[in-house]
């Protein structure tokens, strides 16, 4: 990885006001790690997401939430009660200096405070306001309450994830964890904002963006809509594999260490040279059976004997670790992957080579903590975490006094008033 240092990030000229909870903080984080000046505006006392665990050394405290830290790196933070007149005035002053407002309030809430798009546009005509909400600004579900798993239910994720009956009888549809409905929504919010920035560059025009997480999730279901559209198919859930209208395909095998390997079955689409490469790897464990015999140079033999081939492979995979199978298969050009947990990912030197991780300073702890950050290497402007997540109101003085020109005395009054 390049060691050159840069004075500005990819989005280094942008200021983003983030009025976002768990639904949109990921979008703000991704922009902040690209160098945008993202100012997180929390209610006095701090954002509710600070109360979500896990916590640093399992100490529940609003300044110890690993969840909050993960989703709020590189941002600055201020506290502001936007339901109070003075708080609204401060927000309006900030809007005049900003490029983007990212908000996740229920539809209509900001307008009711005099802070809707039309009102903000009158302060800053080129402002881009992105409203990321569970179901969008209008429609019968617009005011519904939600949770990550509710979005995965309605969005179509759950109907596709789960188990074959023979593996887990009576299993429910499964919602994968990790907060991915919020991730999916945040990715589209990022794209909407990125496209609006391009348009603003060309035309000078700002705009309001209405992003529905429900629609984001529904779109993130690969073949399901096409399959229904073509043949009216309802997809069946398969253990660790793609939902399909037909029967299951081999998708994961357990190694001798009890860990799983994601793979595909051998068969008509396996060319002889590729089968041979795999057989050579299997042979290093003495488990190639007859797969190195010349008859398998004939594709027809491969097709006819695919059941046997898969039995031999399955026996071999059960006798090696999932990690061995992953590297062995990849070296024979099979796109297999070990089903890993964080432990195995953190110890894979490939990610050190790429600089995926970053040690981030937490001055209060006197410690540097390891975060994932560089999912992509930008040749001119690397992604990096510029600071750990803000403490509650950490940048109140810097922003209110230093940038908006408020005196310390005025800020103190606002604090007494419960505005900051």
């Amino acid at each position: 990885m390049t060691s050159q240092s840069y004075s500005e990030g990819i989005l280094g000229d942008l200021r983003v006001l983030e009025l976002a909870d768990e639904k949109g903080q990921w979008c703000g984080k991704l922009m902040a790690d690209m160098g945008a000046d993202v100012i997180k505006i929390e209610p006095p006392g701090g954002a509710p997401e600070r109360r979500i665990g896990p916590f640093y050394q399992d100490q529940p405290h609003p300044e110890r939430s690993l969840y909050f830290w993960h989703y709020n790196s590189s941002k600055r933070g201020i506290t502001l009660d936007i339901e109070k007149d003075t708080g609204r005035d401060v927000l309006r002053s900030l809007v005049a200096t900003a490029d983007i407002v990212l908000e996740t309030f229920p539809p209509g809430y900001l307008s009711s405070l005099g802070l809707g798009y039309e009102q903000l546009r009158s302060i800053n005509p080129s402002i881009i306001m992105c409203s990321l909400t569970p179901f969008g600004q209008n429609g019968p579900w617009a005011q519904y309450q939600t949770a990550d798993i509710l979005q995965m239910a309605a969005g179509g994720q759950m109907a596709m994830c789960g188990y074959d009956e023979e593996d887990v009888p009576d299993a429910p549809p499964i919602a994968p964890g990790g907060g991915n409905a919020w991730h999916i929504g945040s990715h589209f919010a990022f794209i909407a904002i990125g496209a609006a920035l391009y348009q603003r560059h060309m035309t000078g025009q700002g705009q309001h963006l209405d992003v529905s997480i429900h629609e984001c999730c529904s779109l993130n279901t690969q073949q399901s809509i096409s399959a229904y559209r073509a043949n009216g198919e309802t997809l069946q859930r398969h253990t660790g594999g793609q939902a399909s209208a037909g029967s299951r395909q081999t998708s994961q095998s357990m190694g001798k260490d009890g860990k799983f390997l994601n793979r595909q079955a051998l068969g008509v689409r396996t060319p002889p040279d590729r089968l041979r490469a795999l057989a050579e790897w299997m042979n290093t464990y003495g488990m190639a059976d007859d797969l190195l015999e010349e008859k398998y140079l004939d594709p027809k033999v491969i097709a006819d004997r695919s059941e046997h081939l898969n039995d031999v492979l399955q026996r071999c995979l059960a006798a090696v670790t999932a990690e061995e199978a992953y590297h062995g298969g990849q070296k024979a050009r099979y796109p297999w992957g070990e089903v890993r947990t964080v432990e195995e990912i953190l110890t894979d030197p490939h990610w050190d080579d790429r600089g995926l991780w970053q040690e981030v300073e937490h001055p209060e702890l006197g410690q540097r903590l390891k975060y994932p950050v560089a999912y992509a290497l930008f040749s001119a402007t690397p992604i990096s975490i510029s600071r750990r997540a803000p403490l509650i109101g950490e940048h109140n003085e810097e922003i209110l006094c230093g940038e908006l020109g408020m005196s310390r005395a005025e800020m103190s009054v606002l604090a007494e008033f419960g505005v900051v």
Partner: protein
Amino acid sequence: MTEQRALQGLRVLDLSWVRAGPWATRLLGALGAQVIKVEWPAPGSQHYTGRIPFAGQESGEAPNLNNSHWFAEVNANKSSITLNTGTPAGRELLKQLLEVSDVLIENYRSGVLTRWGLGYEAIAQINPNIIYVSMSSMGHVGRDNTYSGMGPSHQALSGQTFLSGLPDAPPAGWGWSYMDDTGGMYGAMCVLAALHHRNRTGKGQHVDLAQVAVGVMCTGAAVLDNTVNHRPARRPGYPPGNRAHWPGTPLLNNYRGPTVAPHNSYRTAGGGYNDWCVIVCSNDDEWQKLVTVMGDPIWAKDAMFGTVLGRLENQEEMDRNIEGWTVTLDKYDLSSRCQEAGVRAMPVQSAADRVERDPQLEERGNFITLDHPVMGPKVYQNPPIRASESLTTSWSPGPLIGQDNREIYCGLLGLSEEELRERYVDGTLWPKDLPSEAYSYLPELAEVNDARQER
């Protein structure tokens, strides 16, 4: 309503294949970019296989290059040109296309395009300001950079597969290529971020995106829980099914928000495969509202259900009782009753449900009917974005193979009719051995056949 699209004027040369790359450009196309999909329809080539065996043909229809629903959805909002990039004449045309493009996007295995003489260094010689986005499995840097993958193996390697499932069962994983869809999103995000940088500085760059790394980013606080608290993911009660916590196992946060109960799936009336709903109560107040919606059943009055800790500990009994109520109601009826009372609940929806029954997607215009020249009018998906100053709807189904050859080669690059015909004849724009009867929208093909016969 404005006719403007946000990315109008942007030209993207799309060398990507399968799904993740094409999904990135599908979105850019819907937002107004001119996406030129470069294909080579020779049997056995990746683009041929992208259009044919990956299913999505209607039952009884023999697969051909232009009747895959799968392809038509993934490649909506794009142009298609055919080009044999392996010949000098093909290279010359590709070079001309690169000179007039803002973005190149590709998702080959690391090293493949460099071997073909199309790596970033070479392309930057032709167009120094180009934004070149590579989206391989493991990235181009790192000892395993030549490893290849697909959505499911990216999910496995990134920790995404493991965070889905019931405790003490194999991983359930994701029932579709989640990391293709999401990898595609990151491809588009990287393009837009790099464009913003270029608009400000005039500088293009290379972006080396690793799709597996994207999956690692999206595991939530699981990474920090390990690097900071040294907590293993292979532990009792994890992953916790649809719950926030599995009863009878150590009480820990499992990276799906606050640790609360109820937080589960429940069967609903009808008993069908997807007759399920999900209910979450994020505090005691919401629990009491649920009790009211359920009709104040006696079991729910038990003090052990009155607090979040009690509900977490006694989830089995509570969930069994809740399901005794949910099975009496249709999943939509149940969800609206709950929501009207301030209780978080939604139906589990299949694709059929979303197309036929979902009133929200209907009201919001999530689906659009587009007329495909071969498959007729069908429903396609719109981007999940409404914008006050730009159109964001899908505007065309996936292109017919080579349908835009004339417009791009003659209209954009300025080839004469004679030159265009010559490129067909010499095999640059159409494989010599590929039958042409099914492609009457390419009149040049008929002429080419005549020309070849004369020779």
